[in-house]
Each structure stands twice: as C-alpha cells, then as structure tokens.
C-alpha cells in the first residue's frame, strides 16, 4: 500500500481525553449497546465562552442562540440553560424543540422560533411569549390572526430576509454583483417595505424587535453584504417609527473537523487524481463526491465540507465582524455598535463542536476478494446512525482497541478499509471512501467517530429496519475519572446523581 491518507480528527479537551479512556468506554458500550452516542455537556459551555469573548472584544451585546436542530440532546440544552440568561438563548425550529427547551429550563424570553412553522407551533410560541423569527408575509398574517383570536399578548417578531443579491443591484452603489444561492427561506429583501407595512398593520398583535438573515454559505463577503443591507432595513424601520434593536445574523459559523491542513490537502489532491484515473480509486466503486472525469478534464464540484478550516466557530464570527463592509466601509462590529444594535447569532454546528462522539463496535473484518488489498469492516451501526458522509464531512474514526484483545502479526501496520453498516443494503456504507486506520481492527474493538454532535449524530437515524437506534449518554469528568448518565437524566446541577454537585 502507498502512504496511508489519514484525515485525523481535530480533538480538544475534554473529547481528546475521553477518547483515550477506552477502559471507560468499552464497558459503557457493552452495557448500553452499539451504536452509542456520548455527549460532553461541559464543552458546550466552553464554546459559548468563546463566542462571548468575541462579543466582548467588539463591545457588542445580544444573545448567542443555540440552534437546537443540530442535536436532539437534553443534556446539551440543559447545560446551556444555566448559562447567563441575558447572553445565551435557544433557537427552535419545531413545536417539539420548543416544548423541549421550555422543559429544559429556558424561559420564553430566551427562546427564538425559526424555520417553517405550523399553526400549533406559532400558537405555543405566542402563548408562551417567545420571539418569532418570521419567514414570510403569510406567516406574519397567520401569527397576527392567532394572537388576536386567542387574546394573546403582543408577540415579539424578527423579519428574516433573503435574496440580498438583488438588493445590492438595486442600491447601485457597487458595480460588483455578488451572486447567491437561492434559498427557500426568508422574505426577499426587495419586499421589505411591504413587510414593514404589514408589521404596522398588525401592530396590535406583533412588535418588531429585529431583522434577521441566515445564509447557507461559507462565504464571508456574502454575509457582510447581507448584514449591511439589514442595517439599511433597520434604518427604514426607524424612519417609520418602529424601534427594532436586534440584527440576527443566523448560524453557519462552521467547524474544523480535520486537524492538519497538510493531510486535508494531500487527501483532496489524491481524490482528484483518483477521479482522473492517475491513481487507484480511493472510494467505493470510484465514487467521486460530485467530481467527474470528462476526457481528462475534471468537471463538477467536490461536494465536500471544507473539513480543515483555520477559522471556524467563534473565530469565523470574529472575522465576519472585522471585515470592511462594501457600502458603509466600516466593519460590521463597528456598525452594529455605532447604531446601538444588539447582535444575535444562531450557531448550531459550531456551538456543539467537540461536544460528542458516536461509538460503534466492530462486528466483522473481511477481505474483499482474493488479491485485492481491500478490507471491509462491518460495524454495529448504520449510515443513519452516523451520517458524516451524508453531510460531506470526511474525517477518520479513532480506533479504541478492546482491552485485553489479542494482537496478531497480520494486522500490524496501517491499512485502508471500507466501513459498512448493519443493514442488508448495498448502499449502507458508513464511509464511501477508504478509511485509513493505524492497524486492522479486530472484532470487539470500538471505532469512535469524533465530533459528530452537530447534525451527524443520529440526525438520520430511524426505526425502519428494526435495528437498535443509538442511545445517548452524557459524560462528565476530567482525565482519569469519568461518570455518565443517560442523556435524559442529565441535569447540570446534579449530573443525574440527584445530589447537588
């Protein structure tokens, strides 16, 4: 085999020390079954601290709202509930999520409802007094009707805008048009005036507290432009006598999954070479992740999450706030501060960076056909339990040898394997690429997929095939001494032990 192409995960405490604690994790999986999701609620508080530090450096006030959609865990939400209520909130995108965060101890003033909303969701939001981030004029009408019909208090609303590309052209102040991907969400910014008129019409039912966007892009320039245009709409609000104070810039701050830039660069280069046929395939049946070979020229775009990111999470927010904005020239942080606006952010993935891992037991190790060097490793989990591939995130699992498991000559040294799941489906590959491990795994070893708490952990899991769905546990502790409890038993003041800690 040529040089193994590792994509080692970025690991920070306490996840790094947890994955060293095989003697703790093995019995846990033996007792609770494979797959098993492990959550580290302490780490989410550390991530909040990093976001808050960026706020502090820029003298900004406003809340960091955890976008709950990224993980269903109770432990994570409850851990956030004990953080400072003026600076940490929760973003919910369904009726169930709203019920959940209320039950986890978030008071309604710290909750924001986003995403597509049905009438029950709108009613409970308005009934309990959470802020509604409105997606469309229709939603505004519907909310106002519910508020009136059921005699509810005036509801705080934000208007979520989209389509900033046209807005830029209309403003005419720049000859450069920044194209944006079409979004299903938010109201087009050129309809902002009509929306504001509707807000005024519904003044008895709603109060406008801010303007919002969430863009599905890693591009900073698009976000700065959107932010600046939201400021213009805030201006328009003031001119109309409305008094919103919040600019909500959504989520999408990103996570760096792979530690080493060199590994990432080598891997992606090798992948293009494999697609062009100048080196052996690196993937199951030559899957190209969206890349194609057309007569020797590479076509298509690699649908890969940029797994090595020097600036992600709080660092990305800092960069976004520090760039010069195209029209007004001053950085977004300065503009927000000078206009006396609060900043809201809704990180999902970025806030649960390093907050969890998915564990699976090795069930079978098999050579595929004579003479080929390919191994298949079957795990007690399936692609629904751990969907890094589904999100285009390429990163290696960590091998946790079974304590006392015997060693053999044949399994020494690096090896490339395909990881397959426990479903009777050709398509059930946990990795579509060959994963390189430091040695061939043995039956009974564990593979730990690090940093899966954001979207990858059980996001696509279901009961359809009657395979066990992963249980989730919250673990706490440092270094040598770990304790755990079921996710639903975790409370930040007692860690599931019933005694104030």
């Amino acid at each position, binding site marked *: 085999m040529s040089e193994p192409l590792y994509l080692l995960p970025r690991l920070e405490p306490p996840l790094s020390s947890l994955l060293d604690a095989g003697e703790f994790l093995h019995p846990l999986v033996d007792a609770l079954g494979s797959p098993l999701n492990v959550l580290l609620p302490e780490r989410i508080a550390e991530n909040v601290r990093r976001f808050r530090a960026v706020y502090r450096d820029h*003298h900004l006030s406003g809340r960091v709202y955890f976008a709950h959609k990224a993980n269903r865990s109770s432990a994570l939400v409850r851990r956030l509930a004990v953080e400072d209520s003026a600076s940490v909130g929760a973003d919910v995108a369904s009726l169930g999520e709203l019920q959940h965060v209320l039950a986890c101890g978030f008071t309604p003033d710290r909750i924001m409802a986003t995403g597509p909303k049905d009438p029950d969701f709108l009613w409970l939001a308005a009934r309990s007094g959470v802020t509604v981030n409105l997606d469309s004029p229709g939603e505004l009408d519907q909310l106002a009707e519910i508020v009136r019909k059921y005699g509810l208090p005036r509801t705080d609303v934000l208007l979520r805008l989209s389509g900033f590309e046209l807005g830029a052209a209309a403003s005419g102040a720049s000859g450069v048009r920044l194209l944006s991907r079409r979004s299903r969400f938010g109201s087009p910014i050129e309809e902002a005036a009509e929306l504001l008129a509707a807000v005024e019409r519904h003044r008895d039912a709603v109060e406008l507290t801010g303007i919002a966007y969430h863009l599905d892009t890693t*591009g900073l*320039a698009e976000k700065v432009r959107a932010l600046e245009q939201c400021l213009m709409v805030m201006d328009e609000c003031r001119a109309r006598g409305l008094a919103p104070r919040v600019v909500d810039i959504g989520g999408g701050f990103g996570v760096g999954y792979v530690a080493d830039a060199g590994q990432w660069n080598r891997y992606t280069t090798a992948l293009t070479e494999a697609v062009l046929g100048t080196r052996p395939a690196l993937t199951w049946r030559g899957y190209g992740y*969206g890349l194609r070979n057309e007569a020797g*020229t590479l076509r298509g775009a690699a*649908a890969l999450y940029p797994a090595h990111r020097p600036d992600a999470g709080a660092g990305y927010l800092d960069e976004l706030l520090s760039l010069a904005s195209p029209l007004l020239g001053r950085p977004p942080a300065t503009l927000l501060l000078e206009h006396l606006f609060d900043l809201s952010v809704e990180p999902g993935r970025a806030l649960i960076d390093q907050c969890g891992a998915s564990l699976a037991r090795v069930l079978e190790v098999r050579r595929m056909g004579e003479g080929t060097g390919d191994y298949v490793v079957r795990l007690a989990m399936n692609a629904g339990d751990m969907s890094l591939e589904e999100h285009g995130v390429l990163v290696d699992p960590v091998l946790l040898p079974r304590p006392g498991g015997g060693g053999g000559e044949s399994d020494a040294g690096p090896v490339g394997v395909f990881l397959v799941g426990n479903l009777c489906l050709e398509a059930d590959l946990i990795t579509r690429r060959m994963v390189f491990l430091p040695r061939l795994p043995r039956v009974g070893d564990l593979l730990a997929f690090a940093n899966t708490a954001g979207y990858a952990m059980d996001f696509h899991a279901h009961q359809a095939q009657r395979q066990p769905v992963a249980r989730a546990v919250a673990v706490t502790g440092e270094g040598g001494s770990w304790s755990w409890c079921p996710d639903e038993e975790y409370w930040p003041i007692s860690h599931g032990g019933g005694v104030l800690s």
Partner: protein
Amino acid sequence: MRYDSITDVIGNTPLVRIDPAVHGLRHIDLYAKLEMLNPFGSVKDRPAWNMARPHLAAAAERDETVVELSSGNTAKALALLAGMHGLTFKSVTNRMRVPEIKELLLLLGAEIEELPGQSECLDPTDTDDPLTRFHQALSEPGSTYLHTDQYFNPRNTEAHATGTGPEIVKDLDGRAPDWFIACVGTAGSSTGVASVLRENDPRVRVLGLVADKSDFIPGIRTIDEVHQVGLFDPATYDTIEPVTSQEAIDGMLTLIRRCGLLSGPTGGAAYQGAVRRLRLVDAELTDSDRRTAVFIVCDRAESYLSYVRQRRPELLGAPRRGHHVSDLTDADVAAGAKTIGTGDARRWIADGQPAPLVVDLRGPHAYAALHIEGSVNIVDEVFDELVRGGLPFSKSRPVLLACPVGEKSARYAALLTRMGHPDVRSLTGGVVAWRDAGAPLVRE
C-alpha cells in the same frame, strides 16, 4: 513607430537577460519574456485578442455581451477590446480577490458577478453548482453572449503558439531554450509556447508552476484546480511544482528592485520557481555546458499593492507623522483622559458657560440615524487626520467626545489633553450608556 490600432501593438514583447549577479546561476543564461509590456499590461492580451477577434463584428451587430470566467488579466484585455467595439464585458468568477483589479475592471466598464461561497449544509447529490448554472445560461437558445471560454478555447493556446513561442526562438537566434518556465493559469501560454519550442528541439524541459494548495497567487491555479482546465495536459510539463505567495513576493522584489522589471506576483513566482529549480540543474553542469532558460513575466506590480500589503505589510509601511492615538499606552489613557458620565454631561451641555462642543466620533450612517442633539459628527478616521497636524479646536471651547462605548473617545481625550487642550472630556460608556440611561437621541 506608428500604428492604426492599439491591437497592432499586441505581441513582439522583449526578451531581457537577468543579470547573473542577481540569480547566481553560473552556467545558465536566464531570460525574462516581458509579456507585461503588452498594451493592456499582460500575457493575456494575445489570447484575448485571438479569441475575440473573429467574433467581435458579428457580436456588435447582435449587441451581445462578452463574458468570461476571469479573475483579472483576461477580463482586463477583453473589457478593453469589448469597449473598442461598442460592447459590454461581463466577468463571472469567485477568484477575484484583489481589490485593485476589481476596481480597475469597473473603471473599464466591466460588469462583475461573483459566485457564491460553498454551501454550509452540504448535499453531495446536488449537481446544481453555480458554474454549471452559468454554463446553462450561456447555452440557452436566444442568449446574447459571446463567451470566449479561455479555459477550453484552443485559440487561447494558438495565440502563444503563433506569437509568444516563435518570438522566443527568434530572439534566441533560432534556437529553443533548454528550459522554459511558466505559471499555469489557463495553461494557454505554457502549452502554446512549449509546443513551438519542442518542435524546434524536443529536448526542451518545461517547468509548470502552480500555487501552493493552501495559498493564493492571483492568476494561477493550484495543482487540483489545473485539472479543471480543458487546455491543461499533464504531458506538456516535465515537472509541476508549487510556489507560495511569499516566494512570489520574494521573486517580485528581486525583479523590481534589482532588475528594473516592474513585475507582478505571477512573474515573481515564475522567477523564484525557476531559480529554485535551475540551481539544482546548475550544480550538475560544468564550465563547458552553457544552458539557456526563459520564464514569463505575466503582468505588472501596480495592481497588487493590497495583495502585498496583506502579506508583507512592512514593505509598504509609511513612517508615521505627527500625533496619533496609537502613541498612547493604556496607562497614558487611564491617567490622561478626563471622563464624564451621562447625568453630568447632560447638565454640562445644558448649563455650561460656555457649553461644550459635542463631537460624535461614529460613522456618518450611525450618526444620521440617531445622535445627541447639537453634536457634530467627525468620524474617527477623519479625526485621526485632523489631530496629526495639531489641535483642531480652540482652547477656549470645552469639548465632549462621544463614541459607542467610551473607549475610543477616552483615547482621543487623553491625546488632546496631552496636546494642550485644557478641557476635553470623554463620555463615559459612550452613546450606548447615554441611550441606556434614557437620555434623548435625535434623528434630524
């Protein structure tokens, strides 16, 4: 020299020897092909003209827009050619990361469309990438575009096979050089020149230079990106090597400061990459073996000042003159700034004899939206300029400085005090504290 049209000036660029004292190669004569002396300033003048020329008249009749995926030099040449023929030019790219180039293109009348960044919530089955959409739009029936298609158009390579390459051979008295070194962007210049040189002498060695994968050099591609270029054929190159932006700037500095060649970063990358490689070759040669090498200087330095500023700020650091807030330490500010809270400030404004001049240091847009009544707006950047020369206010008039949270204003208050103003105060907590205390803000 008299010409009928600027397009007649394209090509016939000089080949200039680099002083051996500069490159230090003992057995190799190194020459720079100065494509930067083309009339529009770059190696792209030739392919732009060659690709567009056959279609411009018809395009003008149908009032088409010339479009190209270009981050700079091709766009520049095409924009000028389009303008000469009464057409507009549009560039679509996500690679235009040099602000001066963008602004220059706007000056030339180009329209620029920047492609969006990568999706955060990835869908690996999505084939609808923005570039595909762009190509679909071009090929829609009834579309009014002239797409020069530089990454796939053989007339790009042809311009160099009929121009750049033969000129090199002619200037070397009918011989091909032993080495040819070029940066790879569209692969047009390297492919075109290499083919002609090899026709002359199949032993010519060709070195292709690409940008280091985690780095950015304007106009050239990384090793992965070159594979997306239709004109790129790995067989053209004996070796492909990466160059970093720092090496490119090193090379640029040598060419500019020691050779009098006002090269941009790509030319710098070609020089640096050439010398790095040729040193190894040189070490193997004896005194009886003389070799020749040619590299291309693609364009000029002026458009890349912000590129250099970002990566080597010390090269452009102007010495500071006059007074500046950054001369003060935090301790100087703490000791020297007089401050005043919202309540006292309100009384001072209302009853002061004389009342203070209130200066709001925020941006004009924020000031216009809401401010303390009667205040004047002097944005911090402007204020910086004003105080360099001396006190901008009479000493007889007290001054109240306000910024968002009272931090910036404290620095300026300390500075003005040090400069001799008897009564400058900073609003504690700034306009934010003023607002939070319920004091009035107006919009006029």
